[in-house]
């Protein structure tokens, strides 16, 4: 069974046709448990996300700030396995019909087996993968497997990426480009820096892929601000925080759904 790269592209294209940015939500699998994690991912989509990224928790998340680290720890202490992450992708996609990507670090994929991971993710209905510590130079084996199984390979670009690297990275990527709004790890920020807009401009100059902006976006106003210059807005830590801060699961799920709704309005608003 082929993966859902085409579904991902068509959902992003549909948002563009509506003259708005797409909303991409992130939550790690297994948080707070595998089954409740499926509910949380589904709640993001119910609330208004167009696309979701399911995190595969890693013991050493060097690109994540304290909020996602805490969620990863909870998932890992709960005994999350890669097969549980793939089940989360499968169930979230089956329930909602939405494009579901996986986001993780390279070592879990390498250990599971590159071909096996791509095959299983595609069979689960996954749309692609984001591997932020796999630079384009080391990515050939993954890209081959992803292409064969109909999965997108979403690369991250950063404000420090020079134009020639942007060209090289985006030429190898598919689905969309993940533009890091700032130099830093995941987490909510007071403001989205103006580095993001410049990076989107430079990225668009070298690729026709949609460019989605992540890192630091946590509320509707920021979503509106980013939506004015990007094809998509990616929000992660703010969703995790809703679940961490809630007194119980149902309250947390309601807060996730509500945040998705606010952000979905944000990406539709003209700033």
């Amino acid at each position, binding site marked *: 069974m082929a993966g859902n790269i085409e579904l991902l592209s068509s959902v992003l294209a549909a948002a563009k046709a509506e003259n708005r940015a797409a909303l991409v939500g992130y939550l790690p699998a297994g948080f707070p448990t595998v089954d409740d994690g499926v509910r949380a991912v589904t709640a993001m989509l119910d609330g208004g996300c167009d696309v979701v990224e399911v995190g595969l928790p890693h*013991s050493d998340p060097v690109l994540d700030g*304290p909020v996602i680290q805490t969620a990863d720890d909870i998932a890992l202490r709960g005994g999350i396995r890669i097969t549980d992450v793939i089940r989360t992708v499968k169930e979230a996609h089956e329930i909602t019909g939405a494009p579901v990507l996986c986001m993780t670090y390279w*070592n879990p994929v390498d*250990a599971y087996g590159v071909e096996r991971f791509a095959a299983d993710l595609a069979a689960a209905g996954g749309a692609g993968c984001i591997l932020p*510590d796999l*630079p384009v*130079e080391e990515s050939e084996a993954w890209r081959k497997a992803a292409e064969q199984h109909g999965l997108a390979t979403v690369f991250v670009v950063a404000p*420090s990426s020079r134009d020639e690297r942007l060209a090289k990275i985006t030429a190898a990527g598919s689905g969309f480009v993940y533009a*890091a709004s700032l*130099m830093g790890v995941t987490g909510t920020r007071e403001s989205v820096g103006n580095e993001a807009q410049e990076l989107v401009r430079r990225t668009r100059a070298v690729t026709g892929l949609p460019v989605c902006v992540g890192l630091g976006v946590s509320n509707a106003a920021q979503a509106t601000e980013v939506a004015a210059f990007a094809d998509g807005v990616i929000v992660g830590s703010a969703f995790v925080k809703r679940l961490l801060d809630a007194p119980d699961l149902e309250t947390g799920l309601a807060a996730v759904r509500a945040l998705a709704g606010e952000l979905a309005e944000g990406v539709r608003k003209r700033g």
Partner: protein
Amino acid sequence: MSSEFFVPDPEGQVPSAEGYFGAFGGKFIPEALVAAVDEVAAEYEKAKADPAFAAELNDLMVNYTGRPSALTEVPRFAEHAGGARVFLKREDLNHTGSHKINNVLGQALLTKRMGKTRVIAETGAGQHGVATATACALFGLECTIYMGEVDTQRQALNVARMRMLGAEVIAVKSGSRTLKDAINEAFRDWVANVDRTHYLFGTVAGPHPFPALVRDFHRVIGVEARRQILERAGRLPDAAVACVGGGSNAIGLFHAFLPDEGVRLIGCEPGGHGLATGEHAATLTAGTPGILHGSRSYVLQDEDGQITEPYSISAGLDYPGIGPEHSYLKDAGRAEYRAVTDDEAMQALRLLSRTEGIIPAIESAHALAGALEIGKELGQDGLVLVNLSGRGDKDMDTAARYFGLYDDEAGER
């Protein structure tokens, strides 16, 4: 002028342009760090070709570090090693008390050349942190050291030393709260502050070019030791022995002996409570290839690629990874690695203290324990060279508790 003490790999063959030692190494880093890591590599290539860099580093090594370090024969200790002759390469006598200063001075000069004003570093036992704080004081650089919370407790003396030198020490509370987590946190800092910050990586792991760059700054250990033992013993040793955590002092000792096929290169890994207990940090003995902290090498991990929490009584060896060149040397059969338990290391620590009046670091005591066994295997005619990578002052609290040296505690005194 050419430098006697800065002796990068003359072959220039290993690693490949992409940073690979055979199947190991590479550069698995986030895009945000690619430009910074490439800048370090480019600056290092320029520095290697610049006689002024070698001259400045040479001057520091002689007049600040105190190189060359001594080679000491330890006959009373060797009586317990099957009668083999044992020589210690005295990196413990360097300024700051370990081999770490060799790499730190080299990278501090690179930091200046790159025009960066802030240095961050990880530390396990605190030796790399102390050396880094020292170099930052010397060169007027801002300094932040990340150290696992567990390690700040068991190496409290070194925390005080770093703060005395003007460094900020941040206790890392994530994960296993040891060296691996300190490195994670340092990477997070680097991503956010890369414009003005150099990550002064402390071992021969990490993304290319760090494994080769850090090795080059430590090659002096083996270059000196090889010359010294030829002068003193009239021949090359049968075995060159070092402890391995990340592997910097071991690669520094081994590298000059790589072409000497008759010299066995033996790394002693932290066996903790014993391999069978699962409580150890013997990465090469018990690990499998994977990616940690930017390169492919042996790592301690489960079948899902989650890094498992290591354990060693020695904070400096308590690490689930290893430099990629060691993985290469292991698979190529050029170096061999064996595990030494906490207890074996502590007994060797006490033995050297009481037979030779030298208190070694617990890290280095792993190599000494290995040497006792290797000496017995070699027999009467054996000649063993051990890298005494650091001194044990920092470990006196751990040792005092282990042996019951405090007045209010019982123990095997």
